[in-house]
């Protein structure tokens, strides 16, 4: 099949004709086991003829290069070519862009891809302009069911489209409540357990200790920390092409009005935690911070960032709304894809299974909270034994199972919408409560141009 599509480079017309011809031939050959065509495949998607010796190409971001190294060490007999790319981070969308170009060229796909994003399964699971979906179905026999079942409950949701699993989760990014135990003790405050207590504490801090903060809304993922936890229906992706958006609900309003108070009194600045400005202003002044699991390594225990000394950082279970069931949000967490075009699916599968489940990487090397539950337990033990934290880390385990499933993973980026609609509005002094309708419109518009039916 490759041969034919490649010959069609002369133009779309020629390509259309040759593709038609190729599929006709492939169809005839299928019965006689044609060795150059695709077959329906035993895993639930069409696959090319397999070659167990074929080297596999693996795309990772810079942070995940160590995963490939760990695999090489453990499996010296499997030939892999490692390509480092930007991980599709910060809205670069390079994973999708490149795959679309390979689709047009009809060749060149990598065998395994790591993405920092959670919205790739939404497109990689779908045919695109008539081309075979990029992502291989993993729960059709390619990955053992027992392995899939050992992932933390709900952690494969961003990978699952209509009951089929298209990627394995590298790490979970459940939102919990980080706090500075030393500061809380010094000021005589207790750790809040509900958002109502959290707001009250924020108002107290503004009066008694101005300059100290209890959160931040300047990052594009602020919606995932606060609104996802609050069960706001801003991202109700219900199918591959359907989404329900309603930001006028009480769930959304309670979050918005709480944030309005805390933004106005200066305890929740509209600043990204990754800016030098934030580090300069708030090092040593972060009292509380609801945020994902990876905040620990990325901002608190990082000499380039807040650099909180050992023995001060504590973590508590996600805040809940009074009278409501516990729920929390999630900010990213990487995903591993296997290409459905791979010539060596076995090796590709071995790779993604290794990097998501093996202790050699997930427990010993990986910085983030493993999505694979057995690895997560060991990882937590290892982190606790490091002596850095002022509390145990069981709150992360609790949070991992409380991620609200009403917030989906669509192909469009909620983060980009927040950044462009809400962040500048807060910067110019507008109230979040008043911005909710505008936010809803922006989400709906973005969903529609991406082919979603909006309810």
């Amino acid at each position, binding site marked *: 099949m490759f041969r034919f599509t490649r010959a069609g480079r002369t133009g779309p017309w020629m390509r*259309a004709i040759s593709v038609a011809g190729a599929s006709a031939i492939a169809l005839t050959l299928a019965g006689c086991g044609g060795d150059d065509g695709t077959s329906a495949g035993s895993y639930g998607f069409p696959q090319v003829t397999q070659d167990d010796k074929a080297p596999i190409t693996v795309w990772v971001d810079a942070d995940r290069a160590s995963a490939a190294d760990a695999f090489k060490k453990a499996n010296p007999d499997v030939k892999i070519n490692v390509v480092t790319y930007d991980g599709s981070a910060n809205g670069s969308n390079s994973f999708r862009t490149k795959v*679309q170009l390979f689709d047009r060229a009809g060749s060149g796909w990598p065998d395994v891809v790591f993405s920092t994003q959670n919205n790739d399964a939404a497109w990689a699971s779908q045919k695109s302009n008539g081309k075979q979906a990029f992502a291989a179905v993993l729960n059709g026999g390619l990955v053992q069911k027992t392995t899939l079942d050992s992932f933390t409950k709900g952690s494969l949701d961003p990978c699952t489209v209509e009951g089929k699993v298209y990627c394995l989760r590298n790490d979970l990014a459940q939102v919990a409540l980080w706090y500075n135990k030393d500061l809380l003790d010094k000021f005589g405050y207790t750790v809040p357990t509900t958002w109502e207590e959290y707001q009250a504490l924020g108002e107290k801090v503004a009066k008694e200790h101005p300059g100290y903060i209890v959160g931040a809304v300047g990052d*594009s993922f602020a919606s995932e920390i606060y609104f996802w936890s609050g069960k706001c229906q801003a991202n109700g992706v219900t199918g591959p092409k359907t989404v329900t958006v309603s930001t006028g609900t009480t769930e959304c309003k309670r979050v918005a009005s709480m944030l309005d108070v805390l933004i106005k009194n200066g305890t929740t600045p509209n600043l990204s935690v990754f800016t030098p400005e934030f580090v300069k202003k708030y090092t040593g002044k972060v009292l509380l911070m609801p945020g994902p699991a990876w905040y620990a390594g990325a901002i608190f225990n990082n000499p380039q960032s807040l650099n909180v000394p050992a023995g001060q950082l504590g973590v508590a279970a996600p805040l809940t709304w009074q009278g409501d069931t516990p729920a929390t949000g999630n900010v990213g967490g990487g995903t591993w894809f296997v290409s459905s075009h791979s010539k060596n699916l076995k090796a590709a599968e071995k790779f993604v299974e290794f990097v998501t489940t093996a202790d050699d990487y997930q427990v010993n090397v990986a910085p983030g909270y493993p999505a694979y539950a057995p690895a997560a337990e060991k990882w937590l033990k290892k982190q606790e034994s490091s002596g850095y934290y002022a509390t145990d880390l069981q709150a992360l385990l609790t949070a991992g199972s409380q991620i609200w499933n009403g917030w989906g993973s669509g192909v469009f980026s909620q*983060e980009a919408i927040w950044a462009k609609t809400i962040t500048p509005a807060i910067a110019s002094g507008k109230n979040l409560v008043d911005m909710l309708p505008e936010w809803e419109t922006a989400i709906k518009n973005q969903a529609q*141009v991406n082919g979603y039916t909006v309810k």
Partner: protein
Amino acid sequence: MSYGFVAPYTALVIAFGVLPALYAVFLAFTDNEGGFAGIANFTKVVSDFRFLPAVAHVALYLVIWLVALVVLVSFLAVVVHAVRVRWLSRTLRFVFYLPGALAGASSVLLWLFVLDPTASPVSGLLHLLGFSSFVQVIVPANLPPVFAIIAFWTGAGGWIVIMYGALNNISPDVIEAARIDGATAVQIARRIQLPMLRKWISYMGIMSLAAGTQLFVEPQLLSQASNAIVPNDYSLNQLAYQYAFQQNDFNGAAAISLLLLVIALALSAVFVTRGGLFEKD
């Protein structure tokens, strides 16, 4: 012989200019299966909720930038030309030209620092204007002037040098005659130099217009650097990019680029006719 010199250029223009343009025309009128689509792609992109805002953004940016360019470049070129001290004139030309020597994207990266009040060498000025954070500097209302300033800083120097050369072309006899008739420096500039620069100014207008409608690098880099606070669909070219690589809709992207071409051609026609670019004296 002359054909020999032109041949490599012609080959490259056909391969990388004409053929892709024709391919874009083909794409714009077909659907993703290659069938004829009529004007469906055009109606689709024009009715996109991002289209009109993008047009407005680019239009506002063009107005600010082109006016600033024409006025300031002409003024600065005449001033530099009037400087009689040779080393000063040379230094000024060099200083004006210098920012333009930086490659496009890297000069925008430089501006990321200039615009951030915490890191900027002109942070005092930014604070004076009431900006205390990067986010406040790049709120949507500020973007057209910000892009115009960046574009002026990177592009104007080259034009000042070109205008300086054009001023050298004006016969010294004409200037001399004017001076004997009692014209002041200002009168010489207004009555003699600027009218004689008309063609050069309209040439600058056309080239800058073509570049300006294609606004892409500045908003794209700012968008990435600000984690999408500057939207990634701010300009028309970015929108075309979104169509091609976010939505996998090359046909829609081609339709936008054709629309851009038509608009740029129409506006250029104004400069050509008003500026008398192709008139022979």
